[in-house]
């Protein structure tokens, strides 16, 4: 068996999530190749070569792959897939965009966002917003799989795999990149942070999210939000934690002014320790919280910041 892992990268850097996907590949077993596709991705390929368990890094460096658009990436992967029994990618927006296109081109089903490897053809994945866990077996010759990064520990970085170029360059007349608007943040990436502090509708306004910043700074935390807070315009949508936003599983998740709708819980209930701060003692968030504090967040947050 041999496995191809699609490397996730942004701004010239290999994303940490790739090391988690390699760990999932190791559990499946077999030779592991990593594909780095993009433009000017030499440094990313070098970083991928250091991941433990990787036998070879394949590099597709061409302008057509610059923004990893689904159309050329699907073609590229479909051209390489015949050498492999499994193709894996992180369940990021890039992986979710590209991988089903590959699966359909190869006429195979796809397994989305797996959280455990049972065997080479059987995987566990959450369904119904994480309210049930399905064990699913694929009878297809090629398994196309996206991996929930937070469900697997990252592999180390002591490897030294060989790096070789992939010559295949595909045409893409279907789509083109126009522009990008990225939210700026000095804090850790939401999906990878060890501590996440999230605010909900109870924050009352976007300005009040500043109350979370001091706490996040002291804890080295990322700041998240519920959909209600995003819809109310308090914060941008890439901060959203939940079924339709990001799935996080930090060591500590502090939910402030968040009621705990099932769509939100789907995004954070695998956190190791959950703290809920809410004035409504009946809020469903208290049913999953390890530590709950009932009270006014405008009094509690400044006090918490001063005592950390």
């Amino acid at each position, binding site marked *: 068996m041999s496995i191809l892992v699609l490397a996730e990268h942004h701004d010239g850097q290999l994303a940490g999530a790739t090391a988690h996907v390699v760990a999932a590949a190791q559990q499946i077993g077999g030779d592991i190749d990593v594909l780095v596709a993009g433009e000017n991705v030499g440094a990313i390929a070098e970083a991928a070569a250091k991941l433990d368990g990787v036998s070879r890094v394949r590099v597709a460096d061409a302008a057509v792959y610059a923004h990893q658009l689904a159309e050329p990436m699907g073609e590229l992967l479909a051209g390489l897939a015949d050498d492999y029994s499994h193709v894996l990618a992180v369940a990021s927006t890039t992986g*979710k*965009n590209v991988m*089903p296109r590959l699966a359909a081109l190869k*006429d195979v089903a*796809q397994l989305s966002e797996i959280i455990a490897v049972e065997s080479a053809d059987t995987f566990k994945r959450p369904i119904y917003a994480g309210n*049930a866990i399905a064990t699913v077996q694929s009878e297809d010759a090629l398994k196309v799989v996206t991996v929930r990064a937070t469900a697997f520990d990252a592999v180390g970085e002591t490897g030294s795999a060989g790096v070789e170029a992939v010559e295949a360059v595909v045409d893409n007349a279907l789509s083109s990149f126009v522009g990008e608007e990225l939210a700026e943040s000095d804090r850790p990436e939401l999906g990878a942070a060890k501590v996440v502090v999230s605010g909900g509708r109870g924050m009352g306004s976007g300005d009040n999210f500043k109350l979370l910043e001091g706490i996040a700074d002291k804890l080295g935390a990322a700041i998240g939000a519920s959909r209600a807070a995003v819809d109310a315009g308090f914060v941008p*949508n890439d901060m959203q934690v939940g079924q339709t936003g990001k799935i996080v599983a930090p060591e500590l998740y502090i939910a402030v002014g968040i009621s705990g709708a099932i769509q939100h819980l789907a995004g954070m209930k695998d956190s190791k320790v959950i703290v809920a701060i809410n004035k409504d003692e009946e809020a469903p968030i208290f049913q999953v919280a390890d530590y709950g504090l009932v009270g006014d967040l405008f009094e509690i947050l400044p006090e918490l910041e001063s*005592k950390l």
Partner: protein
Amino acid sequence: MKVLVAVKRVIDYNVKIRVKPDNSDVDLTNVKMAMNPFCEIAVEEAVRLKERGVATEVVAVTVGPKAAQEQLRTALALGADRAIHVQTDERVESLGAAKALAKVVEEEQPELVILGKQAIDSDNNQTGQMLAALTGRAQGTFASAVEVEGDALKVTREIDGGLQTVSLALPAIVTTDLRLNEPRYAKLPDIMKAKKKPLDVKTPEELGVEVASRLKLVRVEPPAERQGGVKVGSVDELVDKLKNEAKVIS
């Protein structure tokens, strides 16, 4: 342009689901069903394109059991002109649905197909991308804004870290994200009128596609329960517990 919009009948998103005691699947007997929330956004976008004079006809389509016609009628009440039901009792997953939809696309030749980004039951997030691959069309997934510019489609996509804008050659496939729009409610007179709108029923056999899933559902189980937590009385107690009991802060 003609717009095709795909909808799915799923468990209502407010329902707390139960797993069957024999762990074969989720129990859907006597459970409230509804249109998948992302599909509502897809229908809304198609109807708005029609209201702006961009779309000339909106056709709603679903793949599923007979009861899924309720969701097609909802789409008609919201403003779709006619509906197509690919009726099957098989357990259909994304690839099978995409194959059936690809046949409908071949027959109808819509310039734009709009789907939800994912169904809240299987949480797959695959069908739109697969349909794009099968029809050889460009895809604009997780769309938060869609604009027709001549023979191209400008789509703003919600990506990790922000927004990305792409230009797609038409005909194209778009999948909706939550912020694309706020779906309207169906009004009673429109619900009555929708009963008279055309609804074609086809079978996968007629379309010449195999829709049954090739993925075997081995087992479905409830997730591990979290242990019941405690309520603390003060910030001091909270900080103390986090430091000394949970040991997650220092």
